[in-house]
């Protein structure tokens, strides 16, 4: 019997499988649209990295005195701000928060965004809705091709995934849960403190 790795049938299968496949140019366009949507975020991350990089400052005695005076001024303004905020909280008045895509709009209200122009139904499942596929549907904005939902979340670490036309998919924009791994891929969202 011929060794299987040199068997003509195996060679035929390999040769046929090596043929190029037809790809959909629209799929590439969708991919690049998603990449361009990512770009500002990635750039912002690099800018922050630049600002946080250590650097040496040279100060003359006069410059040092001016800087010290400036810092005292900032402290005073900050103190007034904290004071004002306490008064406002005591009044029981609510504050308005602006909805910004992809970023938690406050420590407790979180917007989930999923880019998928050709799907018909997207919902959110997580530890906060008992992984119920019907409870938290996303709404589609045809102008930008994204699905979104905004909901309040308790502070802490949450595991979640999107259900896209029946398939469970982790959030491509968020880190995966380390315990998810193979076949149970969930994403992680930290609410309160760190913004992920």
């Amino acid at each position, binding site marked *: 019997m011929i060794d*299987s790795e040199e068997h003509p*049938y*195996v060679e035929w*299968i*390999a*040769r046929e*499988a090596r043929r190029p496949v037809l790809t959909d140019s629209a799929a590439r366009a969708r991919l690049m649209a998603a*990449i361009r949507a*990512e770009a500002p975020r990635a750039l912002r991350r690099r800018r922050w990295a630049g600002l946080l990089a250590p650097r040496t400052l040279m100060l003359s005695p006069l410059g040092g005195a001016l800087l010290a005076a400036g810092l005292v001024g900032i402290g005073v303004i900050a103190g007034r701000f904290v004071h004002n905020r306490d008064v406002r909280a005591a009044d029981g008045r609510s504050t308005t928060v602006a909805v910004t895509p992809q970023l938690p709009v406050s420590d407790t209200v979180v917007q989930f965004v999923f880019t998928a122009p050709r799907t018909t139904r997207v919902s959110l499942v997580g530890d906060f809705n008992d992984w119920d596929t019907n409870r938290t549907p996303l709404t589609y904005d045809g102008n930008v091709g994204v699905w979104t939902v905004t909901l309040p979340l308790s502070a802490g670490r949450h595991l979640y995934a999107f259900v896209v036309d029946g398939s469970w998919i982790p959030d491509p924009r968020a880190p995966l849960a380390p315990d998810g791994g193979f076949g149970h891929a969930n994403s992680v969202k930290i609410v309160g403190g760190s913004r992920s």
Partner: protein
Amino acid sequence: MQTFVRFVTDRHVTRATGGWVIAKDMSDDAADVQRVLAGDVEAYAALVDRYYDRCARFAIRMLGDRDDAEDALQATFLRAYRALHRYQERDRFSAWLYRILVNQCRSIAARRSHRERVFVREEAVLLNAPARATSWAGEDEEIVQRVLAELDPLLREAFLLKYIEEMSYEEMSALTGVGVSALKMRVKRACDRLRDRWERIKDD
């Protein structure tokens, strides 16, 4: 046995020279990666154009489904874009990208096997349904996909990396984290399964 005649007659045709990495691609890759990291997002389109079709072939052969393959490709290129600042230039970009692709295909296959447990029971119904228009280009393509789909996913993955992507066992090992001897065993077993399949069908 039309199929048999065809593969016997062209079995001596020289194997396609799909050299895994061409030197020019490597220098182009490095330049494009630098441009992307400098903030030029359009340079990433050049990388996508260079690797999309090759990655698509692997994803389609591995997953056997165009929608799943597209999901794998989207996730692969998005992840690669996000992680590009972690890519080390001493590695080949293509190998680095393929590592992400192989992992994405594994995840999607695992998720789908969960989904398919339901579908298998409905197969009897489907077999009696009128033939549907297939999304595959031709008859041979369809046969190849069906035969590949019969292989265990780990055997299929090893077979594709060896015979379709034409990688060395060392490259495959670096990519999958699996030892060379285990990979050789997987490729051998995949080929054995294919040969056994042939032995079964040739008398029909």
